[in-house]
């Protein structure tokens, strides 16, 4: 029998199938929907993660004071420059000495280190066009190094350079939204009562960067000589882990720390962090995927069950088919196609439901804040995922229908004909 005819007959069985088959299909719909939404959401989260971590720059390490207890929460990367972004994942639980110029010197002498810049950050009230933002975070950077070490990019204007004093570079968000009125290049903003000229606007973020000497003079809660963080640009990213441990050893030595557990500073490596985050993500995806897979297995058992019943019900028809010349293999193909079709239709429903589910989770996350917003506000439903899900559901249907189909094909024609 031609394949086309087998397919027509399989379709005919499907069209005339009972409510039961449709209930079975719902099982597959749910399973596939779960898989599709989980995969698309975690793909989306992974993309977000990569974008955000990518903007940190893999060749810049950050040294901060305090001991980092755990990874995580490091998604503020887009928000600020070097110090702020990576510093946010660190909790200073131990009373620790500040980072000093001496630390900078020590780090400079470490192999594979290209540039080192100490940075401070403090708070100040900032005003523009009659509106004041209280306690905004302002970063003081070394104007001779900053433009070479920062991972931010300029949208308009320029970075701070030698000769700048009361100049400020602001993030795009500040320029756009914070003061209700757009801040443009060469506008003046007041930081801690002093007038600053806006010389550059960064492509993203909502930070303020001013020269470090000025920052020490006007900001509250910053020391005279110490730094809040030190950015380290390395030459060869491939050995960044080695560099991290070199820096750690040297700093421990110079800071008089003997044991690892007493360490009062942290050297963060964006590469390693990225790896850890990715691992966490894929573990999560795997876990959720396993749950979805279980629901799919349940769906597949449903199909198998329906197919067994269907073959039983159609015993007589199978006998008739055989009496008029149908080969066993064709009977088998017809029933395999039939169960594949049940899977496929379930898959189509599941893909649609999955897309709806993941996009509603997106919009839920979009209205929420923080981490959820960052990670789940975009899902990645792509054509591979859709085609893959459809193929997968069809194959599941066929696997579930394989034994019933085999049984159908092996029925003895006389017994089948006699079946009522």
């Amino acid at each position, binding site marked *: 029998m031609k394949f086309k*005819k087998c397919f027509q007959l399989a379709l005919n069985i499907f069209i005339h199938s009972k409510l039961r088959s449709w209930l079975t299909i719902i099982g597959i719909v749910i399973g596939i929907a779960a898989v599709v939404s989980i995969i698309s959401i975690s793909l989306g989260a992974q993309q977000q993660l990569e974008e955000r971590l990518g903007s940190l720059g893999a060749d810049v390490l950050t040294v901060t004071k305090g001991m980092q207890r755990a990874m995580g929460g490091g998604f503020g990367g887009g928000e600020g420059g070097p110090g702020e972004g990576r510093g946010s994942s660190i909790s200073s639980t131990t009373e620790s000495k500040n980072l000093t110029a001496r630390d900078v010197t020590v780090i400079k002498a470490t192999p594979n280190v290209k540039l080192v810049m100490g940075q401070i950050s403090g708070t100040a009230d900032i005003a523009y066009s009659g509106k004041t933002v209280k306690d905004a975070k302002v970063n003081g950077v070394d104007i001779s190094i900053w433009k070479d070490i920062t991972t931010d990019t300029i949208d308009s204007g320029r970075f701070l350079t030698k000769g700048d004093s009361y100049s400020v570079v602001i993030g795009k968000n500040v320029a756009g939204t914070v003061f209700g009125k757009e801040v443009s290049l060469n506008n003046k903003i007041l930081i801690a009562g002093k007038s600053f000229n806006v010389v550059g606007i960064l492509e993203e973020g909502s930070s303020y960067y001013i020269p470090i000497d000025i920052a020490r003079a006007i900001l509250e809660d910053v020391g005279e000589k110490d730094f809040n963080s030190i950015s380290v640009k390395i030459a060869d990213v491939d050995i960044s882990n080695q560099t991290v441990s070199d820096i750690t050893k040297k700093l421990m030595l110079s800071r008089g720390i003997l044991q690892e557990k007493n360490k009062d500073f942290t050297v963060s490596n964006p590469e390693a962090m990225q790896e850890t985050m990715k691992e966490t993500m894929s573990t999560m995806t795997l876990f959720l995927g396993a749950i979805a897979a279980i629901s799919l297995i349940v769906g597949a058992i449903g199909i198998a069950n329906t197919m067994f019943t269907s073959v039983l019900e159609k015993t007589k028809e199978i006998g008739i088919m055989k009496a*008029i010349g149908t080969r066993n293999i064709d009977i088998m193909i017809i029933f395999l196609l039939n169960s594949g079709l049940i899977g496929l239709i379930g898959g189509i429903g599941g893909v649609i439901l999955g897309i709806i589910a993941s996009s509603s989770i997106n919009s839920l996350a979009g209205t929420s804040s923080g981490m959820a917003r960052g990670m789940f506000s975009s899902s990645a439903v792509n054509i591979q995922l859709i085609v893959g899900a459809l193929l997968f559901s069809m194959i599941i249907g066929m696997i579930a229908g394989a034994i019933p189909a085999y049984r159908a094909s092996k029925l003895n024609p006389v017994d089948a004909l006699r079946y009522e």
Partner: protein
Amino acid sequence: MKQESLIKIENVWKKYDMGSEEPLVVLKEINLDIKSQEFIAITGPSGSGKSTMVNIVGALDKPSWGSVCLNNQNISEMSESSLAFLRGKTIGFIFQQFNLLPNLTALQNVMLPMEISDEPEYIAKKRAKELLESLGLGERLNHKPNQLSGGQQQRVAIARALSNDPQVILADEPTGNLDSTTGKFVMDFLGRLHSQGKTIILITHDIELVKYAKRIIHIKDGRIEKETTNTKWRN
């Protein structure tokens, strides 16, 4: 005139294993030689083994012992797919229960054996229409079996049996579920097919119908009890 035998049954036995009980022997030592273009009636009491014998002849069932040759080919030695081919092309079945596929229309039911044997669709359709029209069902092509009367269903079944122009028609009580008028129509149609050169094997326990056949095989308790020749046969 000595003719080649079309169907040759030699020492065929059929038994069913009944678990712990004695096996049930339903055919015993059946020997029968059927020539091409014969019209044979098989008759006997209910449960005597008529259907079993015809099913074996039609390659739907296998004998427990003995051989059945169709066109000099031993059926028990054939592969499953050649048996299927045989059932589709060489043999046409007509059953008491009509046995149409319920979800296909009359036309589709008649087309199916042709499509199974890879006949192009348009040829199958053309031939199926012609057959159904010749059986007076030109107006019922797109009816499903449950929209047809018993007699109409049996005519569709006949059209289906003829679709691949088989050598042999096996009819197992084809009029058993029909009233006498429709039954007569069916029998006359079988007679016509016979005069067109088909070999016909008819199972019936209706003495009235036996007269359509020339050779009558009487079966009792799984054995051929006797064979009679219809003296009043039309030829």
